[in-house]
């Protein structure tokens, strides 16, 4: 059975939900403690939501220097699949494993509500099971989710297909940057999730694990979890190295 690791930082609070969603997708889910220097032979790693180290200094920055993150960075450099959700996205951004930064929400408020996002690509390990252009209903719960990168970086991301998810209207149209309803945190170009340059590390602010069962009001997020687990299983069977990471 494919083993997926879910990192637990002090202050993580979506780790149990994420472990559960991974199990629903048919994988063995194991906790990886933040002090662990190794990844226990997992085929994929998820950094869950929460408030790692209390979000002190900047969301994600203290977690970025924890021992497990050195192992995650090595794993990613060797082509390993890594997904960061919400606070996990912030950790990945602080670690430089995905481009950009997450700023304070435009209107300063913590946002706990449902949004719609669309996958810009369905040919990635994180989105292969999704329908292109179909809006998905997922919850957000964050104070610092406003995606930022400079214009040159944003242009590169768009050109190279590194914009993975965008906030969307109910009709599934990509939200305008200034649309306070559909893009509530003010993310530049309404970016909700990005991919690294080699396509094996992704982060997104909305919570797929909280929308993975009918009882939760939406199963739209389960496609992301299932895509990730499926891709990790394939790689475990036939390891792929990208970027020639030494």
């Amino acid at each position, binding site marked *: 059975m494919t083993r997926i690791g879910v990192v637990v930082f002090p202050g993580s609070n979506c780790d149990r939900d994420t472990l559960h969603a991974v199990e629903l997708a048919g994988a063995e889910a194991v906790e990886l403690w933040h002090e662990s220097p190794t990844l226990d032979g997992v085929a994929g790693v998820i950094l869950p939501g929460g408030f790692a180290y209390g979000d002190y*200094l*900047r969301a994600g*920055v203290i977690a970025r*220097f924890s021992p497990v993150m050195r192992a995650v960075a090595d794993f990613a450099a060797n082509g390993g699949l890594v997904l960061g959700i919400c606070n996990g996205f912030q950790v990945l951004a*602080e670690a430089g494993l995905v481009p*950009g*930064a997450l*700023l*304070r*929400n*435009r*209107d*300063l408020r913590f946002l706990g509500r449902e949004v719609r996002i669309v996958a810009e690509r369905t040919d990635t390990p994180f989105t292969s099971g999704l329908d292109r252009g179909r809006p998905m209903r997922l919850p957000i719960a964050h104070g610092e989710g*406003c995606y*930022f*990168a*400079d214009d040159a970086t944003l242009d590169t991301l768009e050109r190279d297909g590194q914009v993975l998810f965008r906030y969307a209207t109910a009709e599934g149209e990509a939200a305008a940057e200034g649309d306070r309803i559909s893009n509530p945190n*003010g993310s530049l170009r309404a970016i909700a999730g990005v991919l690294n340059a080699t396509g094996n590390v992704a982060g997104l602010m909305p919570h797929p694990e909280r929308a993975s069962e009918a009882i939760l009001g939406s199963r739209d997020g389960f496609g992301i979890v299932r895509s990730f687990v499926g891709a990790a299983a394939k790689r475990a069977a036939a390891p792929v190295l990208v970027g020639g990471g030494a």
Partner: protein
Amino acid sequence: MSATFRYAVNVTPKPGILDPQGRAVEGALGHLGVTGVSAVRVGRRVELTVEAVDELTARGVVERLAGELLSNPLIEAAAVELLMSTSSTTSGEPGR
């Protein structure tokens, strides 16, 4: 031979980065009846003490921390400011 140096690292949002905190503070100015104040930017200040052989070495450590940990260079600028230095040896002899 070593000395201690007290620094402040002032971290502020880079020009052009949206600073909703600064904007919220600016929004409160009117409630105080204050006019003519603009361009409010909210950052943070971190003070720390470094023990090193000299100020150049100490500053090197602080600048590394400022760039890697205390600020995110994508969105923030960090300025290092020496507050105080204390020499722990008075003679020029090498320490043991």
